[in-house]
Every structure is written in C-alpha cells, then in structure tokens.
C-alpha cells in the first residue's frame, strides 16, 4: 500500500520549489542587493571596498558561527563582547611580559575557554537562566578586563603578532580568511556531524533529546566552551589589528552578533539554524553599514536606516513563509 496518495511527480515539483525557495531565498536576495548596490553606489564594487567590508565583519562573522550553535540549542550568550575585550587585553599583557606570541595566544584562548565553560556550567548544570547567567559573566568579564589593564589600553609591540592582522594571502587579509574558515568548519560541524545534530536536537526539545541518549548538559558546556574559544580568538585578532588590547572594545557586540544570526534565520526558540543564512545575515549587517558610509548618510539618519533595513530584511524573509497559517 502506498504511503502517500499523491502522484509523486506532482508532489515533488511544488515541494522542491518551496524548499528551494526557503533554502536559497536569502542568498539570492543578497545577490540582488549586491548587484543593485554595485550598479548604483559609487565605489561600492571595488576590490578594496569589498575587502574592507569583509574585514569589517570578520569578528562578527567568527563569533556568529558559534552563536548560531548557542541559539540553536535554545541558549543565549551576552558575554561575547566582554570576552573579546578581555582576551585582547590579556593577550597583550601576557605578550608584554612573556614576549612569546604562543604563550599570549594560549592565555587568551584559555581565558575564553574558561569563560565559556563557566557560562556552560552555570546554564547547563546550575540551570541559571541563560540571559541572566551571561549578563552576569558579561559584567564580570568586562570588570576583569578593566582591572587587569587598569582601564588603559595595553600596547602591543611584537611585530609577528601585529602582522597577523595585516598579512594578506591571495589578496585577502588573514582575519577574513579566519572568518571564512570558521564558516566552513562550523558549517560542517552543524550539518555533517553528530555534534551539530545533537545541538539542534537539544534546542528543539531538550527532554526528548535527553531521553534519546544525548548528554544534554555536557553538550551545552561544550557549545559554550567553543563559543568562548572562538570569541577569544576574535578578540586576539582584533587586538592584533588595532595593535593594542583595549578594555572597552566591542561594547554592544553581542546584540550585533545575535541580530546577524536571527536575520539569517536562526530561531531564538532553538532547533533551527542554517550556516548559509548566518553568513548572509552577517554580510547584510556589514553591507548596510558600508553603503551608508559610502553614501554619506548622516549619523543620525543611519540609526533610522539601520532599523528600517533590519525590518525590511526580516519582512522579506517572512513573506516566503506567508500563507502557511500557523
């Protein structure tokens, strides 16, 4: 007996087109936007500008990859901005004292891992609300960044460290390449590994995932730990780019990252994530900023525009799911 009543051919075609649409509408929309901007905005479509654009979203991009996992598992992380600042400051201080890039990087990444693990343990094992837990670590880590640096920027003089932010390979700056690598790695992690699937599962229904043998708490801690490490890496790269560790860097960064993810179709209710969407979300945020500056939009009107464009982007994304009544 047939499972479906439908003529398979007839069923397949609308299904594919809808799925295809929902899968590729964002990239397509972005391509159209990009083409239109290239044609209309002077200086937009030039190698330097496009590279500048990518550089401007490199940090957001890296962190968005892990934030995606975090949101997919129905969690939330507000502490990323502080972690960026702290990792940069700590890296710079350790570099100053030890003179060894390896030790400095290890210190920065280690601190990130610790912060992430702390978040994870608080949320997974002590069951503290993720918003409050990461808000608390956000405050504490920012405080630590100020305390260890005495509130002052920490200079970096080591050339090999500084070069990292400057080096170009095939014309692309290293930070952009690192961000690209993050997208590839976390894309694979999300779609091709148990880790990614289980992350989506605990976001979709934590109790069901647990009963299906997913070690929910342990996985949560790992997700936050990864987030901490990647964020710390972004912080070190930022420090290398600006040749100093600044304790007040990246304030408000967390909202940018979360917005980019949500813009890319990651659900705050958990269980849904697409790496491609996140990439587009990140690019949209960067492009909007870039174009407004190219067009010399007044700073005050930039707020207005950014808000409007955010709305338009999600409304467009909404259109395709319209008609479906929930």
């Amino acid at each position, binding site marked *: 007996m047939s499972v479906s009543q439908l003529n398979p051919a007839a069923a397949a075609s609308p299904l594919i087109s809808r799925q295809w649409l929902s899968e590729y509408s964002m990239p397509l929309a972005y391509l159209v936007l990009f083409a239109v901007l290239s044609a209309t905005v002077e200086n937009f479509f030039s190698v*330097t500008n496009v590279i500048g654009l990518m550089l401007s979203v490199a940090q957001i991009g890296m962190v968005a990859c892990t934030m995606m996992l975090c949101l997919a598992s129905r969690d939330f992380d507000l502490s990323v901005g502080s972690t960026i600042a702290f990792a940069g400051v700590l890296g710079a201080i350790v570099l100053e004292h030890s003179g060894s890039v390896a030790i400095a990087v290890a210190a920065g990444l280690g601190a990130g891992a610790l912060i992430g693990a702390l978040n994870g343990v608080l949320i997974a094992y002590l069951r503290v609300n993720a918003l409050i837990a990461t808000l608390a670590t956000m405050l504490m880590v920012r405080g630590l960044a100020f305390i260890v640096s005495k509130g002052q920027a920490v200079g970096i003089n080591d050339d090999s460290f500084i070069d990292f932010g400057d080096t170009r390979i095939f014309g692309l700056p290293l930070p952009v390449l690192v961000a690209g690598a993050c997208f590839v790695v976390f894309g694979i992690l999300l779609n091709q590994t148990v880790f990614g699937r289980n992350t989506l599962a605990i976001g979709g229904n934590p109790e069901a995932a647990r009963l299906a043998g997913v070690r929910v708490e342990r996985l949560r801690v790992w997700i936050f730990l990864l987030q901490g490490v990647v964020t710390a890496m972004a912080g070190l790269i930022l420090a290398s*780019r600006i040749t100093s560790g600044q304790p007040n860097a990246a304030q408000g960064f967390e909202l940018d990252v979360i917005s980019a993810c949500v813009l890319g179709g990651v659900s705050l209710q958990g269980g849904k994530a697409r790496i491609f969407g996140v990439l587009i979300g990140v690019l949209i945020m960067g492009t909007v900023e870039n174009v407004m500056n190219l067009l010399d939009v007044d700073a005050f009107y*930039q707020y207005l525009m950014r808000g409007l464009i955010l709305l338009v982007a999600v409304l467009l994304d909404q259109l395709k799911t319209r008609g479906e009544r929930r």
Partner: protein
Amino acid sequence: ADPVKIGFLVKQAEEPWFQDEWRYAEVAAKEKGFTLVKIGIPNGEKTMAAIDNLAAQKAQGFVICAPDVKLGKAIERAAKRNNLKVVSVDDRLVDGSGKPIESIPHMGISGYQIGKQVGEGIIAEIKARKWNMAEVGAIRVAYDQLPTGKERTTGAVDALKAAGFPAANIIDAPQAKTDTENAFNATNIALTKNAKFKHWVAVGLNDEAVLGAVRAAEGRGIKADNMIGIGIGGAKAAENELNKPQPTGFFGSVMISAREHGYQTSINLVNWITGKATPPAEVLTKGMLMTRANQAEVRKAMGQ
C-alpha cells in the same frame, strides 16, 4: 566641625582620563585630610541618583563632570535641595536655554579649543612636511551623538579650514561606536571613496578613534610619512603608539592635564565648604600637543 566629605562624579568612569582625575583627587584627599566618594554617572538618571546618594552619605559637596551639560539646572536644584556645594569640571554646566550656570564654579577645558589645538598641530606638521594642501585628505572620525565629541572634532576642522585647508578635502567617517574597531571600519570606507589623495591627516574625539584611522590607513599602505593623526587625551593608548620603535601615522596627541582638574577642583571645593575661599567662577586649562619628540617634557609639564 564635621569631617569634610565630597563626591567626585564623572560621566565615563572607565575612561583613563577620568580614572586619572579620580587618582589626583585622591592625592588631594590624602594631603588635605578629607573623604572622597567617587561615583560614575553614565546618564542623567544615574546623576540624580548619585547626588541623592551623596546626600545620604552626608557629603557637603561634589565635583561633577556631567554626562550632558544641559543637566545643569537639574544638578543645581538637586544640590540646593540637599544643601550641597557644586563645582563642575571639564564640561561647563548650562541651563535650559544654554546659558552657563553662574552659581556653579567651573574648571575645565573647552572641547572646541582642544579640537582647535589638534587642527593647529596638524597644520604645523603639514607645513613642516611641505605638503600641498590640495593633495591632502582629512578624515574626521565623527561621533556626533556625543556633544563633546562633536565639539572637539568641529574645533579641529575649523582650525584646518582657518589655515586654508580646502573644505572639500575634509571627509567625515562616522563611527557607530566610539571604539577603535569602528573607527577603523569607518575610515576604511572613507579611504575607499577618496583614493585620490596623496597624503592624509586624521582627527577624532579621542586617541582610540585616531588610532583606528591610522591602522586603516596602514592597511592601505599609507604609512607614517603620508599620515598625520593627532588624538586627544594622551593616555596609555597614545603612549603605546608614540613609544613604538618605528614612527607610525599616529603623530601625537593633545594632552590635557587630569592632574590639575582632579587635584585643584577638589581642593577648591573643600576650601569653599570649609569657608576658606570661594573658587573662581571659571578657570580654563589648556592642552599641550605631545609628540614623539617632546613626550617627556609634556608629561612633566602636565605633572604626570
């Protein structure tokens, strides 16, 4: 008489500048034997809460650098209600119609004047390097949401223009936040749009902003010999740059003396409270341009 207790309220407690002010106020407290309460007041609401808090602690007065000068009237009223004496520092308080509040003595800097010093410093260096002004582009890393930020950069731009710098060569690079990374991104775009200039200068509301501009320029091969960036503040961020083995596009920073502000205002206030002397209605201090060449002297002159 009661032991003297005063508050020292500053708008951005995390900023090195205000940390320094507090530090020197502590020095004064130790020397003169009064108690100092330091509170950060990032916005109007917190300002009001802090004044109430001081009253509860039985302080007799406070030094304030308000998050906005238009808070003047509210601060005046709150102080009067709580019977506190007020001295303003850095930014002069004004009333609703923009007139300075006479009852509050002031010691400070004019953001506009400091900005002007930046502009003048740049002009002097342009002349020293014998650049043709028509070939020089000027980046104004702008954060006009912050009134002091706007004043400072406007002062700098006005000084450039006054020296005959072509107004068309001045390019705004609005930063979304006041950190180096955002200044970097904003400058990057400004450079893209104006690839035609041979030389560049950069101004911004603080050292971090100018630093971002300098880094962005370096990313495009515009190094120390084609870039003059002058920041404001002269704290650690500037020191780091000026002490690098190789000169960078970060030419210098207009240093303002946190010492005098922190130390002198607290002492003036305490003298006022104890009835020894009424502070002068307004004292304006000046900044000094600190470069690689004169770092040590400037620091010494500024008492740091």
